[in-house]
């Protein structure tokens, strides 16, 4: 018990004694704020569950997600030990769902790696440099912004070939402009802040200022946007899957599963609906999480 209290005290110390303690303390403070937000916690819990499901899929799955059994197709949930029924090729939906979680998380990670980063780099450079650099980069952003998103993604996929990586790449390539805009707007306000002037006066160059001082401040608003957008991204990936350009069979990607199952929606509703619910759950989790993060990271919108 005392170990626990002392850890807490250590974390919440008014006067941290080391860099590590300061950093952990700051994290802990945010965590406390976050924890008090019930809905956000719900989101986090769902997400953690999904991640656990993805990690332990081999343990949790009752069947091989790819094993077909044409004699056992389109079984209703619960029949013959298939918890969530089987699909049109007689594969166990529950097991596929578990493995599908891996793909969804993979998508999320991949997009989260590419789009916001690209947006961050472009937006902060444009915002900080100003002048014609800004002009050129922002025109580029406008062009991609004016582009119909799904269509651009479709075009990319059509060009690169169908498949989950390409789908994600395509989505990322279409998703960065809003991030660039946010990052730029944020940079414009930060750039004239006194603490940036101060560091300039210390002799720091633009690269250092952008990466060390501006990025950390843009990241929180980007992170909020990313989590809120994540649902949209998963849905876009699913949409590409629906159009047949996302994950390829026999991959148990949820969007592709819906797409496969939609043929049967009138008689075997669960085949499409269960992955639909899974997508709903993960999007919901991200949305709740994003809302919560906004309260934590962006006090001006959340506060009382």
């Amino acid at each position, binding site marked *: 018990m005392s170990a626990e209290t002392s850890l807490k005290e250590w974390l919440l110390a*008014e*006067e*941290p*004694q*080391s*860099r590590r*303690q*300061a950093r952990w303390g*700051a994290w802990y403070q945010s965590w406390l704020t976050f924890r008090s937000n019930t809905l956000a916690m719900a989101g986090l819990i769902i997400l953690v569950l999904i991640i656990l499901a993805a990690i332990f899929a081999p343990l949790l799955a009752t069947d091989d997600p790819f094993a077909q059994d044409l004699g056992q197709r389109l079984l209703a949930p619960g029949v013959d030990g298939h918890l969530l029924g089987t699909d049109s090729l007689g594969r166990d939906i529950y097991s596929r769902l578990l493995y599908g979680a891996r793909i969804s998380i993979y998508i999320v990670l991949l997009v989260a790696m590419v789009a916001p980063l690209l947006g961050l780099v472009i937006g902060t450079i444009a915002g900080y440099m100003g002048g014609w650099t800004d002009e050129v980069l922002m025109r580029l952003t406008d062009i991609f912004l004016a582009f119909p998103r799904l269509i651009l993604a479709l075009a990319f996929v059509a060009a690169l070939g169908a498949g989950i990586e390409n789908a994600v790449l395509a989505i990322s390539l279409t998703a960065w402009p809003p991030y660039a805009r946010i990052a730029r707007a944020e940079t414009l306000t930060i750039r004239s*802040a*006194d*603490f940036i*002037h*101060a*560091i*300039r*006066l*210390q*002799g*720091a160059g633009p690269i250092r200022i952008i990466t*060390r*001082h501006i990025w*950390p*401040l843009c990241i929180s608003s980007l992170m909020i946007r990313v989590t809120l957008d994540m649902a949209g991204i998963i849905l876009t990936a699913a949409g590409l899957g629906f159009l047949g350009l996302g994950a390829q069979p026999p991959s148990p990607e949820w969007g592709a599963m819906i797409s496969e199952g939609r043929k049967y929606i009138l008689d075997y509703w669960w085949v499409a609906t269960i992955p639909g619910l899974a997508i709903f759950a993960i999007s919901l989790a991200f949305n709740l999480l994003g809302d919560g993060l906004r309260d934590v990271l962006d006090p001006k919108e959340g506060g009382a």
Partner: protein
Amino acid sequence: MNAIEARGVDVYFGSGAELTRAVNDVSFEVAQGESFGLVGESGSGKSTILRVIAGLVPGWTGEITVAGESLQDEKRSRAFHKKVQMVFQDPYASLHPRQTVDRVLSEAMELQGITDINRRITRLLNDVGLGAGFRFRYPHQLSGGQRQRVAIARALAPEPEILLLDEPTSALDVSVQAEILNLLADLRSELGLTYVMVSHDLGVVGHLCGRAAVMKDGEFVEVLGIDAMRRLDVTQPYTRHLLESSIRSIR
């Protein structure tokens, strides 16, 4: 040798119909070790002069020499940053919200190629009256006065000769203001610094400076010693008006 010499400095902002002349043909010099004040109403161009010196304003004209180094445009040499530092008006805006005091100070030292950072940080914090306990705090864990001390510590980190002070206490309570003013006075006598300080509070200028320029609409109305100010020994009516209203508001 003068620490700062300025000749015919002009600053324009905006363009076309929005063109404003923020500073209009300003000349002055500040001797080594002197403390020079800039007073005047809001928008008269006080801060702009400091920012021009610091290299934060693009496109000014005129001549400025700082510690023998002639300044151009926004470019400032490494040596300049070592010699000249600035403290800003708003302690809430002048610290990076995501960086600990430690990080702020150590980065400033790193940039100047200073070694032995740990020991120096401890000493700096002591110098500005904070103590080592504050080293790993984030700005939001500090009061306004404490933040301003951190900002001063940051400015002192490269061991400069000249400090530019832009209303360093106007965002603070009187009680805290007193602490900061005392600190600045102590540092000057200990380290032999040169100050250029902006304030609209004549009391503050009077406390810290030996000489002050009165500004109006981007121009120097008058430059006079603090003693002359006290005696209301002025030539310009604007200066007199400023001094009178300031004295009246206090008493």
